[in-house]
């Protein structure tokens, strides 16, 4: 934060084009994602839901990236830990809870897919699957369509560092590089692919691979919200200007186990997790807002209370909502639904 003149202060976030309200909204969305995630871990332990795959520790980069995009027009291909991202582009906690409880009203899949498999045509969140990184060529195909139709939009796709080893990552990047397509690829490098640490996944840096594809590759501290915002915003400007893709490697740490079916202390130590908890970007960003004079503990307490209420209400709604009728299993195999799926 710097002072310019006697009356007008400039801050890092305003320099980047973010208003105070937007900076606060970013922080609130990170906290919402964190609290949603923590609630799911509790719900699973309490036996209310079968499964949760967590994004705790990754919310800062997810939310910051979303705020740097055109959230009204761009296309999004998040991966399964991106609760912060999808909340930032318009999905509601209620909608996510409907997915967690696998209920009929779930807009992601109507209760068909595991939680974390996002999709909403209304929000241009492209439906995803579980085999990892298949979404990268899809993002490239959407960027190709944008180029063909001369639309000023980008596609934004995320994946983990383990997933970056898949052929679809390479094939998609190369295709996008050849045709200079408006796609932004963000690797959320959380240091683990389930149990396998990054040094057994990667011989080098994910970001360095961009050299081979002929476009910029940038490594960024994923716990630094404003730095992630800046990098993604610049990547978007390049993409819209016809300068092609950008590969971003956001460094972070998966603070929770891979999923509720995983005992992470079988392959890493509590000390390591605690050490990384100290680097958590959410309290850091809160501190930044306080130092800017636009946030305080009182407002923070109010925010957390409001989030708690929101998550409580969404949980109750999701819990009570009806399951899909069993026969709906047979629906939507093809556009013409008559008699399909019945063998």
């Amino acid at each position, binding site marked *: 934060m710097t002072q310019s003149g006697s009356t007008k202060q400039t801050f890092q976030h305003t320099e980047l084009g973010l208003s105070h309200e937007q900076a606060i909204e970013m922080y609130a969305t990170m906290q919402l994602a964190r609290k949603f995630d923590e609630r799911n871990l509790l719900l699973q332990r309490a036996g209310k839901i079968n499964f949760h795959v967590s994004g705790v520790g990754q919310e800062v980069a997810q939310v910051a990236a979303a705020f740097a995009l055109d959230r009204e027009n761009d296309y999004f291909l998040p991966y399964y830990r991106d609760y912060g991202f999808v909340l930032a582009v318009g999905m509601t906690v209620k909608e996510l809870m409907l997915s967690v409880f696998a209920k009929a009203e779930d807009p992601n899949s109507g209760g068909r897919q595991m939680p974390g498999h996002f999709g909403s045509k209304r929000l241009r969140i492209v439906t995803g699957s579980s085999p990892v990184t*298949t979404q990268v*060529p899809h993002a490239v*195909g959407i960027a*190709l369509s944008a180029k063909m139709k001369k639309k000023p939009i980008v596609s934004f796709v995320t994946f983990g560092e383990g997933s970056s080893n898949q052929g679809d990552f390479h094939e998609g990047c190369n295709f996008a590089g050849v045709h200079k397509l408006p796609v932004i690829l963000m690797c959320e490098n959380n240091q683990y692919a389930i149990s396998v640490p990054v040094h057994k996944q990667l011989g080098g840096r994910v970001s360095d691979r961009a050299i081979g594809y002929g476009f910029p590759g940038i490594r960024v501290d994923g716990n630094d919200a404003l730095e992630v915002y800046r990098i993604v915003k610049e990547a978007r400007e390049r993409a819209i200007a016809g300068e092609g893709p950008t590969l971003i490697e956001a460094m972070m740490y998966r603070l929770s186990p891979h999923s509720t079916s995983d005992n992470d202390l079988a392959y890493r130590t509590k000390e390591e997790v605690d050490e990384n908890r100290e680097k958590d970007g959410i309290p850091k960003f809160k501190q930044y807002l306080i130092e800017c004079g636009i946030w305080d503990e009182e407002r923070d307490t109010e925010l957390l209370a409001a989030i708690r209420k929101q998550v409580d209400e969404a949980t109750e709604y999701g819990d009570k909502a009806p399951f899909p009728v069993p026969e709906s299993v047979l629906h939507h195999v093809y556009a013409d639904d008559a008699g399909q799926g019945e063998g």
Partner: protein
Amino acid sequence: MAVMEYIDAIRLAMKEEMERDEDVFVLGEDVGVKGGVFTTTKGLQDQFGELRVMDTPLAESAIAGVAIGAAMYGMKPIAEMQYSDFMFPATNQIISEAAKIRYRSNNDWSCPVVIRAPIGGGIFGGLYHSQCPESVFFGTPGLKIVAPYRAYDAKGLLKAAVRDPDPVIYFENKKSYKLITGEVPEDDYIVPIGKANVLREGEDITVIGYSMPLLFVEQAAEELEKEGISAHILDLRTIQPLDKEAILEAVRKTGKVLIVHEDNKTGGVGAEVSAIIAEELLFELDAPIQRLCAPDVPAMPINPPGEKFYMLNKEKVLEAMRNLALF
């Protein structure tokens, strides 16, 4: 009506659909400047430009995956696999993605992609330029699969595939490109997906098949006519979803059925056709259901005697048909 080659009918279908709808585009290896290794897309880049007839990097999963992404956006891509033997790297994109996009999003998203792939041997292509991979994709709900035999159907089914709201695999037979000719209207028409076609009316035996081997079936039927054996021939045209009604009607007509395809026998389309017949018509049959297919070996060899041994031909088909008639 013009008489044209099977390959010209495929090209004409793409040309017409691209003229009709600017969202239709073709992508694949060598499809642009060269016009395809078989000339299937020849002239299209001159007419429609580099973006709509796109030479892609040599990477089949990206060809399929990029096309799937474009289809979800609302485009109507026709992705070419240079040989169906090379489409296996794209199998995950086709089976895990294209086939499930509508279903997994509860009808929110759709994937109207067409994937064209040349199948079949008899061109001295050896193990990896001759395969029939239908059975790999057959039985995956969410996919439609067509495999035209006649030039008329080659055009009409490709146009129907482009207009279909769901993913369609279009298996064109590479030996048929120049071998099969027929009357093809030069105006707009489609052949509906999911409808089989009676190629020949007959009384004694029924033969069911798809793609190039039906040429041998038709030739054999001509000869058997002279022996007083009358064959009823059904061209499936679409192998998924199968036209169950047409299959049952064709078998009911004669009570004796032979199923013919170039894909190997075990787990092939013929196995499912046999099962449908057995489930519905067992007590109306006058002979055991017969199948004539390629042997269960990994693929056909390049040496001429080996290839000839592997491939179906008129003589093999004729013998199988005669044996069934005499049963």
